[in-house]
C-alpha cells in the first residue's frame, strides 16, 4: 500500500516538481554553495553572532524595500551592509563590549523591522515567510538573484582568498605584508550582506546564521586545510538542503527550519568519529 501511494504521489507531483520543488532545491543548493565557504570565515573569525545580528537587521531592509518600492532583496543587502559597517566602527571604538553591541543591534534592528513592517498599511507582508523562510515559494526572479549573488560571492572568494585568509589569521601581519586590510574587511562585509539577503528566502532571517555556522562547524573535523573546510562546508550545506527538503515533504514540516535541523543532525554525526577517536 505504502509503495502504491508513494508511486501515485510521485506521478501526481511530477508536474508540480517542475515548478516549486525543483526551484526550491535549486535555491537551497545555490545558497548552500555560498553559505558554506563564507560560513567557514564566519567560524574562523568568531563572528557567529555577528552574522546573526546582520541577519536580524534584514527585516528592516524588507520594510525599506517596500517603502521605496524597490526589490526587498536590495533593501536587505543595503541595510545589512550599513549595519555591518556600524558594527565594525562601534567595535573599533571599544567603548562597549562586543557582545553588548551585538545584542543591541541584533535585537534592536529586529524590533525596528517588526514595527516598521506593521506600518505598511495595505501591503500584505508575509512576516512568517521573511522570519523563517519560504523556500517553497521561490520564484524564478528569486533564483536569478540567488545565482547572481552566488557567482559574485564565489568569484570574489576565489580572487581574494589569500588576502582574506591572511587577514583572518593575523591582521597586523597581513598589513605589514602589504594586504589592504580595510578593503578586505569591507569586501567581507559586502559578501556577508548579499549572502544574508540571498539566504533569507531559503531559511528566513532568524535562521540564516545557522546556515553559515553549522555546515562549516560540521566540516571542521574532516578538514586538514582551510580550503578543504570551505568546500566541505558547502557540500554539507547541500546535503542539509536535500535532507531538510525531503524531510519537510514527507513529514509536512516547515522547510527552512527542517533544513537547519538536517544540518544539525549532520553536525551531530560529524562529531561522532572524532569523539570515538578521542575516547580510544
Amino acid at each position, binding site marked *: 500500500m505504502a509503495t502504491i501511494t508513494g508511486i501515485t504521489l510521485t506521478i501526481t507531483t511530477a508536474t508540480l516538481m517542475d515548478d516549486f520543488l525543483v526551484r526550491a532545491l535549486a535555491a537551497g543548493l545555490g545558497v548552500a554553495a555560498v553559505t558554506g565557504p563564507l560560513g567557514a570565515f564566519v567560524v574562523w573569525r568568531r563572528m557567529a553572532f555577528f552574522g546573526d545580528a546582520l541577519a536580524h537587521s534584514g527585516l528592516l531592509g524588507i520594510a525599506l524595500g517596500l517603502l521605496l518600492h524597490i526589490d526587498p532583496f536590495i533593501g536587505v543587502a543595503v541595510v545589512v551592509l550599513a549595519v555591518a559597517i556600524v558594527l565594525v566602527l562601534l567595535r573599533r571604538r571599544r567603548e562597549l563590549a562586543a557582545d553588548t553591541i551585538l545584542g543591541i543591534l541584533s535585537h534592536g534592528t529586529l524590533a525596528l523591522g517588526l514595527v516598521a513592517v506593521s506600518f505598511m498599511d495595505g501591503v500584505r507582508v508575509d512576516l512568517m515567510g521573511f522570519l523563517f523562510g519560504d523556500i517553497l515559494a521561490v520564484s524564478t526572479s528569486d533564483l536569478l538573484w540567488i545565482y547572481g549573488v552566488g557567482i559574485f560571492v564565489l568569484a570574489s572568494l576565489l580572487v581574494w582568498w589569500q588576502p582574506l585568509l591572511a587577514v583572518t589569521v593575523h591582521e597586523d*601581519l597581513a598589513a*605589514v605584508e602589504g594586504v589592504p586590510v580595510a578593503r578586505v574587511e569591507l569586501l567581507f562585509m559586502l559578501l556577508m550582506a548579499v549572502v544574508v539577503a540571498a539566504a533569507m528566502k531559503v531559511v528566513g532571517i532568524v535562521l540564516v546564521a545557522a546556515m553559515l555556522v553549522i555546515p562549516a562547524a560540521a566540516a*571542521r573535523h574532516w*578538514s586538514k586545510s582551510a580550503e578543504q573546510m570551505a568546500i566541505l562546508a558547502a557540500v554539507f550545506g547541500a546535503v542539509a538542503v536535500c535532507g531538510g527538503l525531503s524531510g519537510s515533504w514527507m513529514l509536512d514540516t516547515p522547510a527552512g527550519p527542517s533544513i537547519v535541523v538536517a544540518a544539525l543532525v549532520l553536525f551531530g554525526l560529524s562529531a561522532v568519529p572524532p569523539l570515538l577517536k578521542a575516547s580510544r
Partner: protein
Amino acid sequence: MNQNRKIEPGALVEVSGLEVRAKNRVLVTGIDLTVAAGEIVSVIGPNGAGKTTLIRAVLGLIPATSGRVRIRPGTRIGYVPQRLTLNPNLPLSPRRFVGLSGAKMKGRRQAVLDEVGIGHVADSSIHDISGGELQRTLLARALLSDPDLLVLDEPAQAVDITGQTELYALIEKIRDERGCGVLMVSHDLHLVMSATDKVVCINGHLCCAGRPDAVSQHPEYVALFGAEAARALALYQHHHDHTHDVDGHVHNEHGHDHGHHAHNHDGHTHG
C-alpha cells in the same frame, strides 16, 4: 611628517623624537633609535613600557603623534608579531601559514622552513606544534620575502629556557648569514644582553641606549630592573670577559634627555 632630512647613510630605520598617544594618554614619547644593516637592536623595558607601541609605529601600523619614523626606501620588512592566537577551528599547517605571506616564492618556502629548523613539522597541524616551533614558523614567514629588516616582537615568548637560547642563537645566525638588520623587543634581559649589538631601554620614554655593557651600568636601567639587572650584567660579563672601550658619554647625554622627558611623561599620565 617632516621628510626634509634624509635618513642616515647605512641606516634601515631611523626613529627620532617619536611620540604616540591614544586618547590623550601618552604611550611612548621622545624615542630615538636607529637600526643599521647587520645590526641587532633590542628594545627592553618593563611591562607597559610601550615596546609594542614603538614596534607598531615603526611598522606603520599606528601613526606617530609627533616625531618621525624613516625607513630607507625599498626596505623589505619581515615581521614576527607578539603572540599568535590561532583559532583552533581553522585547519592550517605551518607550510600553509608561511605561504600566507604575499611573497610569491613557492620554491623558497621549503628553504625557509628548513632554515628555521621546522621542516619536519611543516605539514602537521599548526595547533599541535610546540611554542618554540610556532615562533620558528612565524620567523619562517618573516624570512620568506628575503627581508632587509627583521622586526620581532617578543620572539621567545611562550618558549622554554633552552628553546629561548636556541631561538636567539638562530636570530643571530640569520643576521650573520643574511646581513639583515634586526629590531627586537624582549624582556628576558640576560639573553638579550648576550645576543645584541645595541640595547634601547624604554619606559614610556627613552631611559638609555647603547652597547649592552654600558646600558647595564646605567643608573636608570638599574633602577628599572634592580636585582635582575645585576644578574644579567653578571651573566653578560661572564660571557664576555674582555673589556670594551668607554663609550659611556653618549649614554650620559641620553640620560640628561631622559630626565626631561620623564617629567613630561609623568605630567601627562598622572596630572
